[in-house]
């Protein structure tokens, strides 16, 4: 059975189920079935789509994280399950796309479902976030289509299996498409919407957008554009490296003095986009694909986990700013610990996935000879500990405000434990990912 058909069909059927518990069960079964199909070697199974062990590993991770997200969801998020299944289906297709055409189409599919996802608006702030994303997204789609047009005009084939161009026109066209895609990856100069949207839409949606969609797009883009990136001369590579530096520095510095936790996490997400761009610039190194895969795997677990914990904290204890967090460790040790571990992973503390991810990606940069880039990335990493540790300081070392205890649903906790498991597993056992390419 085709993986895509399974998830797509599940998404189509899901609105018919009105009972939330049943719907969750149904969605989990669909994901479980997809996982089984995946383990049996099933892929999208259409022309222009192809699976490799590299992609398969990440598809499995996406399914696991989707399951954790579904476990987390609440009665009010009825529509989100359907959209999540759609996103999962589109993600599989995006990851497996082999030509520019299938890539752009599935990319737009993911974009459109993301718009539907954020349009589940409950208040003015969420509306603002959704509108900003929509505008930016529309503009980005325009840019991508502009690039595609240029690509066609210069006489290239959309369906060529490897993106290789030898003329300036085609080069510029692909570069413009890449910049359009940077909108989803929140890379300078296409990042401005992200800080607002991630912080303003519901935290669950922010988790889906900043964790699942971002990593899937990053991996798929790298896969499609790798031959193109490898063709780039020295100067364009430096340009990419410069974009990476600007993105991570900007994200980290803007995160440093924020008061709202969601905004810190939003900017940290932009900073991580900068780290993700390192393997793009370091494409000459054989470690680049491994580096990106590791960052994607680590990031999808830790980023979705922090936003989901934040959602629980907001819903039950009205926690929004750093001051609200004070003394969380005393009253709610379990959630405080879950939050802290994932934050440490984001900061890159050893024995957590975030550490090896950064280590490998940075190593790829060194391997490709991009020393200055990696030096700046390391400094950025150190800088980022400033705000992650600042959050932890508020959780554990400040006097408790009078606050309640999180009752928390069991399924949400289970979802968190799955994400925690991922963060720890990939922080200790590196062989799975290192082995994928060899």
């Amino acid at each position, binding site marked *: 059975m085709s993986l895509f058909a399974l998830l797509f069909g599940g998404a189509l059927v899901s609105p018919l189920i009105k009972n939330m518990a049943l719907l969750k069960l149904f969605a989990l079964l669909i994901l479980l079935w997809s996982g089984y199909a995946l383990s049996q070697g099933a892929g999208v199974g259409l022309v222009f789509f192809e699976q490799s062990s590299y992609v398969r590993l990440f598809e499995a991770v996406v399914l696991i994280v989707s399951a954790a997200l579904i476990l987390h969801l609440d009665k009010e998020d009825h529509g989100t399950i359907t959209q999540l299944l759609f996103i999962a289906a589109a993600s599989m297709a995006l990851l497996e796309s082999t030509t520019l055409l299938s890539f752009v189409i599935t990319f737009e599919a993911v974009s459109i479902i993301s718009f539907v996802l954020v349009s589940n608006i409950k208040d003015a702030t969420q509306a603002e976030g959704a509108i*900003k994303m929509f505008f930016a997204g529309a503009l980005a789609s325009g840019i991508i289509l502009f690039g595609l047009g240029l690509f066609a005009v210069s006489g290239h084939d959309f369906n060529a299996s490897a993106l290789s161009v030898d003329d300036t026109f085609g080069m510029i066209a692909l570069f413009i498409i890449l910049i359009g895609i940077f909108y989803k990856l929140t890379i300078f100069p296409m990042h401005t919407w992200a800080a607002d949207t991630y912080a303003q839409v519901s935290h669950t949606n922010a988790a889906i957008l900043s964790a699942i969609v971002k990593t899937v797009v990053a991996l798929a883009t790298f896969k499609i554009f790798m031959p193109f990136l490898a063709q780039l001369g020295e100067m364009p590579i430096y*340009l990419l490296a410069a974009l990476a530096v600007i993105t991570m520095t900007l994200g980290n510095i803007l995160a440093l003095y924020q008061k709202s936790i969601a905004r810190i996490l939003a900017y940290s997400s932009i900073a991580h986009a900068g780290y993700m761009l390192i393997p793009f610039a370091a494409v000459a190194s054989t470690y680049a694909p491994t580096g990106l895969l590791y960052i994607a795997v680590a990031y999808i677990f830790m980023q979705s986990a922090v936003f989901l914990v934040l959602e629980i904290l907001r819903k039950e204890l009205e926690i929004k700013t750093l001051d609200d967090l004070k003394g969380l460790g005393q009253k709610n040790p379990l959630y405080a610990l879950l939050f802290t571990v994932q934050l440490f992973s984001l900061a890159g503390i050893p024995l957590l996935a975030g550490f090896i991810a950064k280590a490998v990606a940075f190593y790829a940069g060194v391997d490709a000879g991009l020393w200055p880039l990696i030096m700046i990335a390391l400094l950025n990493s150190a800088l980022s500990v400033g705000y992650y540790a600042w959050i932890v300081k508020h959780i554990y070392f400040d006097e408790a405000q009078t606050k309640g205890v999180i009752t928390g649903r069991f399924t949400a906790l289970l979802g968190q434990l799955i994400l925690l498991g991922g963060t720890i597993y990939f922080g200790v056992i*590196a062989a799975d990912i290192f082995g994928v390419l060899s």
Partner: protein
Amino acid sequence: MSSVTILLFWPFIGAVAAFILGKANKKMAFWAAEIVGIALFAASLMLWINYTVPISIDYTWFTFGETALPFGIYIDGLSIVMLLIATGLGLLDIHFAHDYMGEDNDQARYYAKVLFFIGGMILLVIAKDMIGMFVGWEFMGLASYLLISFWHTKSAPANAGMQAFLYTRFGDVFIFAAIGLLLYFVGTLDLVEINTMAKEGSIDHSVALVIALFIFVGAIGKSGQFPLYPWLMNAMEGPTTVSALIHGATMVNSGIYIVARLFDFYASTEALLVVANVAALSAFIGATSALVQREIKKVLAYSTMSHLSLAFVGLGVGSLAAGMTHLMNHAVFKALLFLAAGAVIFAAHHTKDLWRFGGLGKKLTLIAAVMAIGGLSLSGIPPFSGFFSKDAVLASAMVNPDTQGLVSVLATIAGLLSIAYIGRVWLLLFTGKPRDEALYESVKKPSFLWITLPLVIMALITLGLGLYQSEAAEFITGEPYVQPHVDGLLIGLFIGLGLLALIVFGLYYKGLKLTEKISNHPFLKIFHQLLFNGYYVEYMITWFSKNIIVASVAKAATWIDLHIIDAIVNGSVGLTQALFKRLKVTQTGLIGDYAGMMVAGLAALTILMILMEGA
């Protein structure tokens, strides 16, 4: 589930379970620990029964480029004996703690830490390479620190924990360095392979010597040898169950274990002689200092140091069998002595001062009996297990031409003195008149099931082990065992032991008044103070670190830290704040601005790209 899986993972799973269950219900922590303890012991027994050839499982933690970090499992006779010691005594210790720690409010934490410790010990003895071994080594170091300072709200245990951590850490740094040297110069971390290479002579001699000595420094720290032993004495501030398990029977063995594991490697260098000399000196210091301690547990701690040194001497003089059988015997009878002392301490409401006891033999007869068995074994009286291995260690030392002199003499003195200090403890505890009537009256007989039963089991093992010494030696070394023999040694030892026993009996049974007079004599008091304070090594180390390291090196480092490092970090606050203010301007929150930025950015980047491509 295979025995290896149980041994590797259950302790850690059990630690988490004991902690969570214990938070819900105090008693549950104990039961979780007891069940895991039984499972671990059963798994070790299964390994022992089914043992034919060494189990070797290769696993690579990860390969990255050219570097591969191994994480293999290797279980041979040596590992199995260590496993049986760790899990068997661990189980009895957990069982004993049911009553001993029964009044404590924080049992969840206690049992979680103990299981975590056992997990570390298991990892150490079944690891195939230095990585797994070092992880286990450090796990135990952490567990030891956590358990010594278990009663962390009191200052003495908290300080003792910190001291243990720092002293052992000093040694650990050298092991870490040794791992680096091995990886760089020898190219493998595989313990079995290192031995094979050393045998073939394919390791550079001077490199091997440095590595062996570095590892031995780590072993000195962990096994309480000269000069890094003072932490072991202060570690007695922890619960007695912890002293018995960690600082008597298991963790302190790990230094000896690692030398034994790398025995062929050590034998290929002169490092063995260093081991023998340092150990003989430690044995002497430990045995003499044990003679004058006031606290029961301190006597046992110095005696532990002394006996571990004897095991080291066994290895150092070239007899793996003698060293390891002594280690094995010592683990059992020392756990027995510690727990018996714990039973007395428990019955006497946590009194540890020897001079407040007396005459307890009438009330605690069974405990007095098992403690006598432990004491006789420790002293080296046949047919108890300690006799055979101690005799073998001394005979091996005398046979080896390199160690016939000083090493043999010091080791023999240490071996003989053991009857003096343990006899003194026993006489002061169980005979004579009660010196503190109120305390004597309040002593109650402890529960048989929870306190005395584990002691009886250990006493039986001590007795039984005496019968299987050569089998045990053959099992550990995998070679036929020849008992070393020196003419007249046995007779000499017996005469010496007999004389010492008489003197101790006279001093502490017949003539307590005379003893008091002797110890108050101003000239003899100097010796008493010297021994009581463990030859002032702790003061010397403290003086050295305070006046040399803290006052000069640390001061300089602090200056650099304050004026250079901190200045940079503090300066970065102003810089990042300024940058933050300027960058914040770009986040206007207006979608029109954002769209404008995106388009302008696209235009600028495209132009740049065209320029680059055109050029």
